């Protein structure tokens, strides 16, 4: 099985937590849906291509920044008492709000398309992107460092393997439950393991009638942690450079 591995860097970025509307909070690493979205956008796919993703990386620190917030309703007419901006006959509210930003993000992402014929195409679109690559918000430019096709195989580990470079990772809960991945807790307390998230991966549109189409998300339970250990004698997914792949 082949995968495309990308290394990318971002200066200031927000991977929005869906439930944060006023202050836009960020995940510590981009969620699967964000990465999938970037790939689809760069390749120009209009339909979802089934793919597995593994995300690891690190950031330097977090800062808060102000941004201009525009709020409106589709087709709502301008009302001088309520709206600050007039766009033709429509009205928009403008104000400020805060956004949480990660600084100096470094990511290592594996993309494993189910249809392996797409490998070259995806690599090509990442090497020569048609538009500027962005991950997170539209303005969060991604500087793609390395794009490499790697072979992915299951290997029985001869010795314990851990993450390098101070990286953190989203570990699918299943890998932990199967005992393939251990989290180095603090002392013997098993609870100090990391932060659990339910991340969006992909969605299907669902029509509820009366013009109501909602995205129904396929969510993945993961643990975000930096203290990761792949246990010896367990079969685990690795790429050709012996990087652990946490594909989901």
């Amino acid at each position, binding site marked *: 099985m082949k995968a495309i591995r990308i290394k990318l860097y971002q200066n200031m970025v927000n991977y929005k937590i869906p439930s944060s509307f006023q202050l836009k909070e960020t995940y510590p690493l981009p969620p699967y849906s964000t990465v999938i979205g970037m790939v689809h956008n760069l390749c120009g796919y209009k339909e979802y291509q089934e793919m597995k993703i593994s995300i690891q990386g690190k950031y330097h620190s977090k800062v808060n920044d102000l941004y201009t917030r525009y709020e409106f309703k589709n087709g709502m007419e301008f009302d001088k008492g309520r709206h600050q901006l007039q766009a033709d006959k429509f009205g928009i509210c403008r104000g400020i709000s805060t956004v*949480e930003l990660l600084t100096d993000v470094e990511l290592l992402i594996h993309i494993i398309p189910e249809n392996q014929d797409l490998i070259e195409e995806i690599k090509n679109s990442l090497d020569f992107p048609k538009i500027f690559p962005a991950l997170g918000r539209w303005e969060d430019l991604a500087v793609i460092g390395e794009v490499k096709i790697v072979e992915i195989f299951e290997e029985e580990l001869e010795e314990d393997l851990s993450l390098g470079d101070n990286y953190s990772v989203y570990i699918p809960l299943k890998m932990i439950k199967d005992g393939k991945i251990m989290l180095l807790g603090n002392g013997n307390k098993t609870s100090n393991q990391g932060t659990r998230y339910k991340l969006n991966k992909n969605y299907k549109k669902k029509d509820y009638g009366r013009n109501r189409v909602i*995205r129904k998300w396929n*969510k993945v339970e993961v643990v975000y942690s930096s203290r990761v250990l792949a246990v010896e004698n367990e079969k685990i997914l690795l790429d050709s450079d012996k990087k652990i792949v946490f594909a989901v």
Partner: protein
Amino acid sequence: MEDNKIKIELSDWLYNAGVVGLYNILEHNGDKVQIKDNFLEFEINSLENFEEKYFKYFIEKYEKFTSWYKIISFQNKIEYWEEDGFQNFNEKSLEELNSYIRDVLKKYLKSNSYIAAYDLINNDFDIKLAEKEISTINLKKNQEFQDILNNIKLMIEKIIKIINYFKEDESKKYLAGKNVMYNIIKNGWNGVCFLNARTKEKDMYIDYKKYFVDSTIEYNKVKKDKFKYNCFLCDREMKDLNNDLSFLNATGFDTKRKSSHVWNFTNDVAVCPICKLIYSCVPAGINYVYSKGIFINDNSNIDSLININQKVRDEILKEHETNNSLTYRAMIIALEEEINDKVKYELSDIQLVRYDEEKYRFNILSKKLLEVLRSSRDDLNKLIKTGFNEINTYFNIYEEVLKKIMNGENLFLFIHKLLSLKLSKPVDAHYKMSHLKSMMYINIKFLKGVGFVENIEKDIIDSANKQGYFLRTEYENRNSENKIGGICYRLLNGLKTNNKDMFMDVIMNCYLYIGKTVPKIFIEALKSDENFKTIGYAFVSGLINEKDKNNGGSK
């Protein structure tokens, strides 16, 4: 999911605050709550009478902040007077009694929230009438104290009746309940249920039960196979999308009028009744002092999340009894304990949420900042009782310094401001130059912490400070201390604009005047901007007079 248990997982910070709140409420009432890793679990039975538990928690935790407590606590005073048959009752006591009647009883008993609560209390005592019967007692010109003593005793009897009425269980339940409703709960959410101004149900307990609790219990009972929607937060199945988040302060958005927040303008931000119940517990999770609040979102696991916030709460309430509303201090103490508890534990990158002026503000504490705070503890503590007035407002320096550090700002600008204030309006400056020195020490640690400077040492502050002082004495010996103010202004201007030439010009001038060599320390100052500012401010703070009490400066 089992039907007789509810399992709740952690999520974003506000939800976590709700989870902590729910835990606090249940735990306070002795219900069993199980904590595992990232979720807590409790029996659905715990929700019986949850409305009582909900209010009980707030009333008991925040009792001393309520106006209800102000009213009943006067009993101690009365007992003290009665003990020796009013022998020690003097004019001062009379004034105390009068101000109690005027500023407490008369004021609160007639307040709308109390009047609304009286109807709910099942008691024959006519409190409205009792309120009318009390009035202040004044000593008239030709009257002796003994003449009015009987009046006073009669009045006190009436007051005792009112206090007794207030002390009844049911009165406390509703009156103190109203207090916490408007003082505490309102900080978390607003506009629905009993905080909806047009609510039909007058009894807030029943209102809460109907709005939050019953729907949860009901939801837990029904089969959810046919539900089409999913909860935005916990993914549980839901019947409709009617529960939005706009009742939470500064969180949700108007789903009807501002749909640009959601994908394709179709609102899918709706929560299940369980999540809504949890959100209603947010005020029990965030720690409030009046309208300020603090919550530490240490969400690596539920245990530490609950622990650290309980510590903050205890510290805040304790601090407050000594009449000191330093919310940050409580947080620092709690954080320190937490760090000491788990040395191995990486307590970093935790989100600190402040609620202030009806807005949430966020800080993220990095490990380095925590270290700075920890190692500056002694210097910080020196600042606790210092402050300054500006435009009729009192600012506490301790709080301001912490705010700045946690925002990642250095203190130069603040030090500058305090120095200028000391020069221009010493009456408003309730601090000494030594406090500014402490701030400079903190600032150095901060600059080092964020990686700005490597080689600044503490002693440059001391020696620059001393040089300032020496220069001052020289000026005083020549009876020219009037010139110092002007010199300081010019030096400060140089410092603020980072203008080393201007600064050094003034320095040279001064040393020419006193006929001495310029101290070596100023060479150090020319090495970097940080050195320049540190040394410069330390020098100026030595130069500004400390002893000048005529101006009412240092306290």
